[in-house]
């Protein structure tokens, strides 16, 4: 069960002839960082940050016969975030509605339904203030709050990871009212 991990990855790109020259390697590095950071690599998870990309890890390119483009492979290491079922995560509430609320933990969106709330919160949606309020009015979950949740389920496709969470357990739920901007 690892939320963040470092791993080695490979990137292949097509480079137009206009980028050939002394700054080519810098350009390739910039391009890799720009295109992978924040992106979901399917089951691998989300790339949080590119860590290492050495010059010697950029292979010698091969000129394509019909286009003049160069096909280049590069190896790099990056920190990835890969959510797993049952993991406990702190997430910021981004949107609240009558069926539950959405949260974000970095690039990951996690939905918490009213069915995954403790019984004293389940019926407590107040549309006027867009909040989930507990019966004793002690707990109020609204936008910008931070909640601690457990991931109930995770699925991925090539573009994104879908996650649903629960706050129906000990030590889960509202942990701070968040920052005011």
């Amino acid at each position, binding site marked *: 069960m690892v939320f963040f991990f470092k791993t080695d990855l490979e990137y292949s790109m097509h480079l137009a002839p206009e980028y050939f020259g002394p700054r080519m390697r810098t350009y390739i590095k910039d391009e890799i960082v720009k295109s992978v950071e924040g992106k979901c690599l399917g089951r691998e998870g989300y790339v949080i940050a590119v860590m290492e990309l050495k010059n010697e890890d950029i292979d010698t390119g091969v000129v394509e016969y019909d286009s003049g483009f160069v096909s280049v492979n590069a190896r790099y290491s990056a920190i990835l975030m890969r959510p797993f079922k049952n993991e406990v995560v702190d997430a910021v509430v981004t949107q609240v509605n009558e069926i539950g609320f959405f949260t974000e933990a970095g690039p990951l969106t996690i939905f918490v339904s009213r069915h995954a709330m403790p019984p004293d919160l389940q019926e407590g949606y107040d549309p006027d203030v867009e909040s989930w309020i507990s019966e004793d009015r002690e707990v109020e979950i609204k936008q910008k709050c931070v909640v601690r949740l457990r991931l109930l389920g995770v699925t991925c496709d090539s573009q994104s990871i879908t996650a649903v969470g*629960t706050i129906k357990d000990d030590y889960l739920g509202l942990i701070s009212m968040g920052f005011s901007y």
Partner: protein
Amino acid sequence: MHDDDDADDEKVCGHPTVYGGLCVACGRAVKKGGIKFVPKSAAAAGPNKKKNNKVEISVAEADRMASLTRERLDESKRLSLVLDLDHTLVECAILARAPATEVHELVVQGRAHQVRLRPKLGEFFDKLCGLYEPTIYTHGSREYAIAVAKLIEAQTIAKFGGRIVSRDDAPDLSAKAEKRLDRVFPGAGGTESSLVVDDRHDVWQGADLDHLVLVEPYKFFERRGLVAPYQDLDTQLAHTRRALVEIHEAYFKNGNTTASAALKQVRSRVFSNDVLCFVALPRDLALLRRFAVAFGATVEEDPDSATCVVVDERRRDRTARCIRPPPKSSASYVHLDWFWYSIWHLDRKDPARFYVPPHEIIDFPVEDHPPAKRIRRDDTNHQSTTAVVVVPDDDDAWADDVAAEIADDVIDDDDDDDDDDDGDQ
């Protein structure tokens, strides 16, 4: 991911809601074909992410939510009000046109949008917030809908409480330009206490039309370019406001009724004493008849038995021979605008103000002029307004048909002192 037997799953968990294919209660991947689900579009899709995961709720959950909503509304003696944005509450221009006052700049998806709020929007919500719970339902993107909702919330007392349905939340919306009330209020009886305010009737089908309070398309930017100086004399929302107060009254007076029945009651008063005869293009005829009947009129083919002969301007030029000699009855000839304004305002307009002088109807025998009443369009005005070119708007094809006619009225209203305003009966 899970190879567990689905039937066994369903015994343990009813999978009340599914988000992006996962059950929100047990976290399992829910396969198609088991429990029946309905899409739940109201503000359900995730926050501003590239990919919006669909939320679906089980039929049982939909019913539970519908009855909960009903309970909450009944308790506060309110109805649901589904509001369209473009050409109904606001008008939005993406290309910067001439600088205008009272235009709000919004940046949506990196593009500058000029949004103009329809006149009397503030008063509209002042009066109706205690009587209705508003929900936005728009063809626009989620980001656009949220930005405009925020603007309206900042400028008026309206509170949408996250009840915003955009094309990103409702797949049917982008594909067929179709709106469905049960997408907003799924579940048994979910739509019973709801009304819709929209400038387009063609996006609504079937029984949903019985919930529709149609408004004149608000096209400030288009018309401003044509007429200078342009005064915004749009009074639609004042009329809609009055009508919605009446409908609300009818609903709660009758104890056990539906919003559509209350609307029907108010609608059918509009033409209740009218026998209408339409002189219109055949393709419009069915539509006009349907509206006429819904608003209480009797429709006759024979102008002699009509009290009002409604003339479609386009018809006059091309197929004049179809227009019959003046009826023997005392029917008055009125412009089609009279009909639409009466519907838009849910209030029968004075036909004299929309009177079509016989000499404007080609082939109309000159010696049979009825005594001249007040003539709304004189010849000079008419000349100048037929030259008006209305910019086509893909988004609103139906509205375009009437837009030219509307443009006429706006000009008339400019030099008309007894402008059709709120106080008008």
